[in-house]
């Protein structure tokens, strides 16, 4: 780390964290930690804390640890030592300074990517434990400003970017207009009851990546899919509340999403290329609501594209010629095992596919997921420094295009390519598919 980078890390001030800390006393902190540990956690946490034999094997799984020159404070077990174990040692009576440190570790030094879980001989889930620390910080009101703003947006608008209902509808109509320049008969069906598929996206798409809606519409149209988008809240499947520790809002978001699908009587939900949203809908939010499995079948874009290709609903006209590589997003690979289907799609659409190493379940995190990128500009330098191993891994492929079907991974890798001056671009799968597919089915 250069002196300027060290100075940048030392000078981080997060207004969201600082504002609340000033009002906290050890008694208030103890009351909240007691409440979370006694009423919201149980045997899982106890078993993890008792079972971990401090073997240190999780260290090499963590991109923070590797990128920060094997600094022990960044190892997964090291992060637990500085947070939950500290709470236990201090009998939950912590100072504001100790809570600040715990919040910074939990929100900005762990992407909850679960890579360390598969490096632990006992399967200790450090991501779950860091999630508990985030929950405590949330209940203390000590959350980074930017991710809290996103959680507020979820609460007020049921989407993560303060998109108003008319703005959403306007964006769809605008994208429909644009897409009709390519496919004149194309429609983006809003509120079509009884459609086979409800397509849901994350709010950054209508806010600043509207071309992705356009491309999805082209794909749906050419594959002749019976689909719809809801015009009401529930169109946004993203969920930063899951990462801020606001489980109540997480539950509201997931319920609203499924309620939109139930209201439209669709057979299944197809989610755009987002990883964390899939985690919320498929793994976390649904279970918080008491659904062991999603009440409406949920399909991630990878699975959907795979079906379109294998069923012949879309055909590839001319494969991508540039060398491409693939970044496995944690939430749909370690979270849903879609890595082989993703590779099938890439081999079907690209001539020259170069694997990253390590890959599949063992891929390094993009550094952006788990809400870390959503903690905003104050932490960008830190996030880039923590992505050094990711940058080296990408550089080694020699590819020109990094494909990744996840918004957070896309944004994280976009930042990495710029920061580490890698002569590559990053693409979603739909970018590649729409560029290579035949214009009519």
């Amino acid at each position: 780390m250069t002196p300027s980078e060290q100075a940048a890390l030392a000078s981080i001030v997060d207004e969201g964290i600082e504002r609340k800390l000033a009002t906290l006393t050890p008694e208030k902190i103890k009351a909240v930690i007691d409440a979370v540990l006694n009423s919201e956690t149980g045997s899982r946490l106890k078993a993890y804390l008792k079972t971990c034999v401090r073997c240190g094997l999780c260290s090499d799984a963590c991109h923070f640890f590797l990128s920060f020159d094997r600094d022990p404070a960044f190892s997964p077990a090291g992060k637990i030592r500085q947070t939950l174990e500290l709470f236990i040692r201090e009998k939950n009576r912590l100072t504001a300074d100790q809570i600040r440190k715990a919040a910074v570790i939990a929100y900005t030094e762990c992407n909850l990517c679960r890579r360390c879980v598969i490096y632990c001989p006992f399967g200790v889930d450090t991501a779950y434990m860091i999630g508990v620390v985030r929950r405590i910080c949330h209940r203390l009101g000590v959350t980074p400003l930017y991710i809290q703003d996103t959680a507020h947006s979820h609460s007020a608008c049921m989407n993560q970017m303060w998109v108003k209902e008319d703005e959403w509808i306007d964006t769809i109509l605008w994208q429909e207009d644009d897409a009709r320049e390519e496919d004149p008969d194309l429609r983006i069906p809003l509120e079509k009851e009884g459609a086979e598929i409800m397509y849901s996206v994350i709010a950054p798409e209508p806010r600043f990546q509207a071309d992705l809606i356009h491309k999805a519409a082209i794909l749906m149209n050419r594959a002749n899919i019976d689909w719809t988008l809801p015009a009401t809240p529930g169109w946004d499947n993203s969920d930063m509340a899951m990462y801020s520790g606001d489980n109540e809002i997480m539950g509201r978001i997931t319920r609203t999403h499924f309620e939109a699908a139930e209201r439209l009587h669709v057979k299944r939900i197809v989610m755009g290329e987002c990883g964390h949203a899939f985690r919320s809908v498929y793994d976390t939010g649904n279970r918080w609501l008491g659904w062991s499995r999603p009440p409406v079948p949920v399909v991630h874009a990878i699975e959907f594209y795979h079906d379109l290709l294998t069923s012949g609903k879309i055909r590839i006209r001319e494969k991508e010629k540039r060398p491409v590589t693939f970044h496995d997003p944690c939430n749909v690979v370690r979270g849903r095992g879609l890595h082989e289907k993703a590779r099938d799609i890439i081999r079907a659409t690209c001539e020259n596919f170069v694997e990253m190493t390590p890959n599949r379940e063992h891929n390094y995190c993009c550094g952006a997921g788990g809400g870390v990128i959503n903690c905003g500009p104050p932490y960008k330098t830190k996030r880039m420094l923590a992505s050094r191993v990711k940058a080296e891994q990408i550089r080694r492929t020699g590819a020109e295009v990094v494909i990744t079907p996840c918004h957070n991974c896309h944004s994280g890798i976009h930042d990495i390519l710029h920061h580490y001056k890698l002569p590559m671009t990053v693409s979603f799968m739909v970018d590649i598919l729409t560029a290579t597919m035949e214009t009519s089915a």
Partner: protein
Amino acid sequence: MHQLYPLATGPLLYAAIFLCIGGTLIQTGLLVMETYRRERSVFSFLSLKSTLLSMLHWATPFGSTVMRKNVVLTLVGFLFHIFLVMVPVFLLAHVLLFYEAWGLSWPTLPGWIADAGTLTVSAACLFFLVRRLAIPELRYISGPMDLLIPVLVFLPFFTGFWASHTLPGFRVVHLVHIVSGEILLVAIPFTRLTHMVFGFLTRIHTSSEFGGTRYAKDW
């Protein structure tokens, strides 16, 4: 000194066995009951197939990625755990004690294997201790208990070897062997040594989550 033998091999031994088995059963029972009471949903996600598949990989030397990345630790770890269980259970001297006390007996290890196993466990304890002190990220996460546990395991094995070969001072060392073995038994349910049981429980949960819900490998 000799008066202590009946104490160490009588009431203390029974107390240690009772505390070890009883403590482990109670700790495990409490954990399972608490799961049932507060996190009952865990049970609905358990997957036998995923658990067996995952355990098979983790029970096979170099069956998981992390083992292949840590060759020496894997070899030492496997030998350590195998002999840690095999030597005390199948040692001729121990089986004889059971036979004399309760008339029970079972096959025993040849002496040279028992000796090699005992020395392997002792050496592995030293390896774990040195590793813990030498590697910065391990030092960082280690507390006094983490340093004590290898010593707790080392003592009964090393003293057992010493006493069985009637090396100088073996009478005292034998007593140390018995008492340290009893301390180790008692420590199982009350220290990180609970991973002997809890490790299986966390593995069952994680394997089920990975294999049964997330369709991904956890090895």
